[in-house]
């Protein structure tokens, strides 16, 4: 009798894990801050429509994976850094343009749980409380507060509030901006200290600084999976 009871409960628990994928729902996909690209990314036709609407109209540019990429590279501590490349698949935002068609402000909502890497177990670890803890903090957000001209032509310094892992901090990073095919582009590479956002686990094994890359004007492309 006990054995049968245990067997039925075990079956129920196994069904719990392999039934409906748990990726659905979540704050990222149920709140008003849901990235607009979520449904578009899942549907080819909608993606095309989104790409069309990504052109600069009426002083605004809609951004998403179809015309923007947000990537990162983390490295290990020690003699072999073994860099790990990744990015986010689902995000949406708006770039506001000034009268000259240059970028004046950026707001982007990121589905943190849409992060990808080339190694599925690493993706799981980054989603876990070891790092981004995306079950608890499924969304991230960047909202610029200031775009200042940089030292050289086409260079700007971007200041804004980044909310990541439930922590909001002001960050500043340099970027290069340009106009290509009547559309503004932005390219930024800068280090982000994960511990400043509460991601302070495994600092002895994985560097605090993560190299971020943000490109407006290039579509998101996942790199193929490889062996760790």
């Amino acid at each position: 009798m006990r054995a049968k009871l245990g067997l039925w409960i075990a079956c129920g628990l196994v069904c719990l894990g392999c039934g409906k994928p748990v990726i659905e729902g979540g704050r990222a996909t149920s709140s008003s801050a849901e990235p607009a690209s979520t449904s578009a990314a899942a549907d080819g036709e909608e993606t095309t429509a989104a790409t069309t609407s990504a052109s600069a109209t009426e002083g605004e540019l809609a951004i998403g994976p179809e015309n923007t990429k947000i990537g990162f590279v983390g490295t290990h501590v020690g003699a072999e850094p073994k860099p790990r490349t990744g990015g986010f698949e689902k995000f949406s935002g708006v770039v506001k343009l000034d009268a000259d068609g240059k970028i004046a402000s950026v707001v982007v909502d990121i589905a943190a749980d849409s992060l990808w890497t080339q190694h599925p177990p690493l993706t799981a670890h980054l989603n876990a409380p070891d790092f981004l803890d995306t079950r608890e903090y499924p969304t991230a957000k960047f909202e610029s507060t200031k775009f200042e001209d940089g030292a050289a032509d086409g260079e700007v310094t971007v200041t804004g509030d980044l909310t990541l892992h439930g922590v909001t901090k002001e960050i500043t990073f340099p970027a290069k901006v340009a106009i290509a095919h009547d559309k503004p582009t932005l390219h930024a590479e800068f280090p982000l200290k994960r511990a400043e956002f509460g991601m302070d686990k495994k600092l002895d094994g994985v560097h605090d600084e993560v190299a971020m890359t943000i490109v407006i004007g290039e579509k998101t492309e996942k790199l193929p999976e490889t062996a760790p």
Partner: protein
Amino acid sequence: MISPTEILALAIAFALSGAIAWAGWRWLPECRRGVVSLLAVAVAYAAGYFLLAYDDAIPPTRHFHWPPYLVLGAAVVARFAAVPRCPTALRWALYAAAALACAYFLTPTWPALWPPRPICIALLAGYILAVTLAIEPLLRRIDPKTMLAAMIVSLGALAMLITYRVSLVYGIFALLAAAAFAGYAAVAWRKADQVPLAGLALLYAVLACGWAFIGCIEPRPAAPGLLIAPFAPLAFAGAVAGSYRERRFALQIGAAFAILAASAAWVIVT
């Protein structure tokens, strides 16, 4: 990949469990020694956990902060439920209440949790209760050393699978359970068959099923293969029918490892 602090926490869990076992054996009267295993495992696990997560888990704010509190509570329940004179109905009721309480605290409040939280609580409570009720009679009937070894190996394997598939942090928390059991076993090994160990079934179920569940629901997609690992000691269940004495030790160990291998295969493939 394991930090010095984590190694220290594992060492403390192992050493403290052994120290409590040694002290209990030395100074407690024979009739009171049934509590030693419960005290050793629960206190050692909690000490190791709090060393790693004292700033997060005191007070607990997340579902995975609860295992040290729950294992201490389970030790109290097991102290009363596992004594031979406790009526079976009362024992089952105490175990069921403990399992339900554990499930309530170990199930997260994520809006995206599927199945919905009440169903998860019911399933997890049933899971913990089933493993407890299945293992407890084995601890009464089967060689305690063999069962201790099976539980340690199962917890260790579960920890490795969680580390591989889900999280280094969770993996270490699960490995602390193996260290706490191993510390007790290391000291009490020679006398293990002289003391009732039945109460350890609830502690094993709370820790093994608890971490298997926490590890299962965290990743996307979920990792249901982890849920199999806590059943590994049940490979001895066939022996309960009465043929245990005739069975070969290697065969039983092989069966336990087969369950762990199935769990590992499922976790790695998915």
